[in-house]
């Protein structure tokens, strides 16, 4: 190392100081960026407050509560059959799936079980609502990245599924079809054939989306390696559903628990992805839609004959007790903890909805990413505001 003379040293220090001054002058102040509460990328009214340093997010926090409708309090003043009307609207894209865990919890308390025919039809409708839910997600994914075509495709093909749900239940959106002890009605004539055809169309839709979107170079470069959530983080934040499976954890409540439903009658598999990035989350959802189509197709052949309603009293009083039932809903694990005091209505209902936990990882996942990636990460996490705020 050469020794610097005093003069050289001084000039070196001066240049350092000049650089530092320059840095101080150039240092940009942090900026706070507000995304929402009304933003097309937030699927409703989520507000995300980001503190930026240049193009990078240094701190982000979701501000929920813009869609808080007070479900848990409202269920206390409704009777058991009335509650299903309300909880339909928690995850509004997959309405029927919301009713099922609650009804199962009530049935558990009453110690009754729906007849086999009702169980199979319930499972079919459950999966149809998953398809209706996730197909819109797949279409919407393109919009977040500036591609508008997929959303038209999604809306077109989703209508077929909604028609099916409407045909069976009478409600396009909020069926309110599940009853304690069975279902409201039997399937209409011709519904099964119609469903078969629609399932073929939906599988074609999945193929199209896979071609159009997942094979797209821009899509891949904006999704792959972005927003990686490792398995331990996913677990510790309580993620569920496709978000968890995309981090490589093989966990699906449809397969992993015993419920009086008909998933075990069909042959299907749980998809996982080792990467844990945005692409993996979307890809797992795409595969799940295909699996759902397969489940529906297989179950259509296995609907047993028989009644669709067990014997339940006209005025339903649920005996005292507590029950917890969770199912694998389109967005993830959704569960109800029902406390009954033997009245017409529940004493207390705790709702565990998937999106609330899925969104809680946002402050962690958004740290250090670039602003355009915020939108894709949020889109791939896939939440629904009613499901977050309840």
């Amino acid at each position: 190392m050469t020794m610097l003379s005093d003069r050289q040293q001084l000039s070196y220090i001066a240049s350092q100081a000049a650089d530092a001054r320059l840095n101080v002058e150039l240092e940009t102040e942090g900026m706070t960026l507000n995304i929402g509460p009304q933003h097309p990328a937030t699927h409703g009214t989520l507000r995300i407050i980001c503190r930026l340093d240049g193009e990078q997010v240094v701190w982000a926090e979701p501000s929920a509560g813009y869609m808080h409708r007070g479900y848990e309090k409202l269920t206390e003043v409704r009777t058991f059959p009335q509650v299903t009307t309300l909880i339909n609207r928690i995850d509004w894209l997959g309405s029927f799936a919301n009713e099922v865990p609650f009804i199962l919890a009530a049935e558990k308390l009453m110690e009754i079980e729906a007849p086999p025919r009702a169980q199979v039809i319930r499972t079919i409708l459950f999966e149809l609502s998953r398809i209706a839910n996730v197909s819109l997600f797949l279409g919407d994914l393109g919009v977040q990245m500036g591609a508008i075509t997929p959303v038209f495709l999604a809306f077109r093909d989703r209508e077929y599924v909604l028609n099916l749900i409407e045909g069976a239940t009478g409600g396009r959106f909020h069926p309110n079809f599940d009853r304690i002890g069975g279902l409201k009605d039997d399937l209409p004539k011709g519904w099964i054939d119609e469903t078969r055809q629609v399932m073929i169309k939906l599988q074609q839709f999945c193929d199209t989306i896979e071609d159009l979107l997942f094979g797209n170079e821009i899509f891949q470069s904006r999704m792959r390696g972005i927003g990686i959530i490792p398995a331990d983080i996913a677990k510790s934040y309580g993620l569920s559903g496709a978000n968890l499976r995309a981090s490589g954890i093989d966990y699906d409540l449809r397969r992993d628990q015993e419920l009086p439903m008909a998933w075990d009658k069909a042959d299907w598999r749980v998809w996982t992805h080792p990467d844990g990035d945005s692409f993996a989350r979307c890809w797992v959802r795409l595969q799940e839609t295909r699996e759902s189509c397969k489940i529906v197709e297989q179950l259509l052949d296995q609907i047993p004959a028989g009644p669709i309603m067990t014997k339940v009293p006209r005025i339903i009083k649920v005996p005292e007790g507590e029950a917890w039932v969770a199912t694998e809903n389109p967005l993830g694990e959704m569960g109800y903890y029902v406390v009954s005091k033997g009245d017409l209505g529940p004493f207390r209902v705790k709702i565990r909805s998937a999106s609330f936990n899925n969104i809680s990882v946002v402050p962690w996942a958004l740290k250090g990413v670039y602003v355009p990636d915020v939108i894709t990460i949020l889109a791939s996490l896939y939440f629904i505001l009613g499901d977050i705020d309840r």
Partner: protein
Amino acid sequence: MGLVDRGRMPAPLTKLFNMSRSYSLWVYQWGLACCAIEMGAAFGSPRYDVMRLGVIPLPASPRQADFVCISGTVTDKMAPAIKRLWEQMPEPKYSISMGSCANCGGPYWDSYSVTKGVDQIIPIDVYVPGCPPRPEALLEGVVLLQQRIKNEDMAAKWRGDEYRNNRREYEVDDGGYRTHGVSGDPIPSNVPPREPIVVGGGPIE
């Protein structure tokens, strides 16, 4: 628009203007809850296709919009944002309230956090009842709104007669600054109050 603000619009010209206004409506989609998806189906899907009615569904900001479609549950936390949005929109502006929640609270009529009716915050022209209303119902609401626009007297609207007559309760005296109402003239008594339009007739629910 010298003719309009002097209040002397020849009838044929009014008709022409109203026709053009009603067939180039830019709608700002203020989607809040479940109804937002049905609104998306009505405005953004190939099956319902609102553009054939002359409605353009995707303005970049409320400042470019002619009418706003409020669809879904309005919560007390959201209400100030809706008010601000409405005030950002330029006159003449219209509004559609879609779904029971926005009309009157809907299934959450006894909830502690839901605003029972968006008409407490902003004036509403057309109510679309239903939970959620079918996309067809929303399209009918749009058609009814277009009919209202076609029958409007532009000069009266410019003077704000009609506006003040019907929307008095929304006028806020903000330290000498009147939020609504253009001129200070007395309101002529021959202007009938505007009835709210409800799709399918019947009560607002």
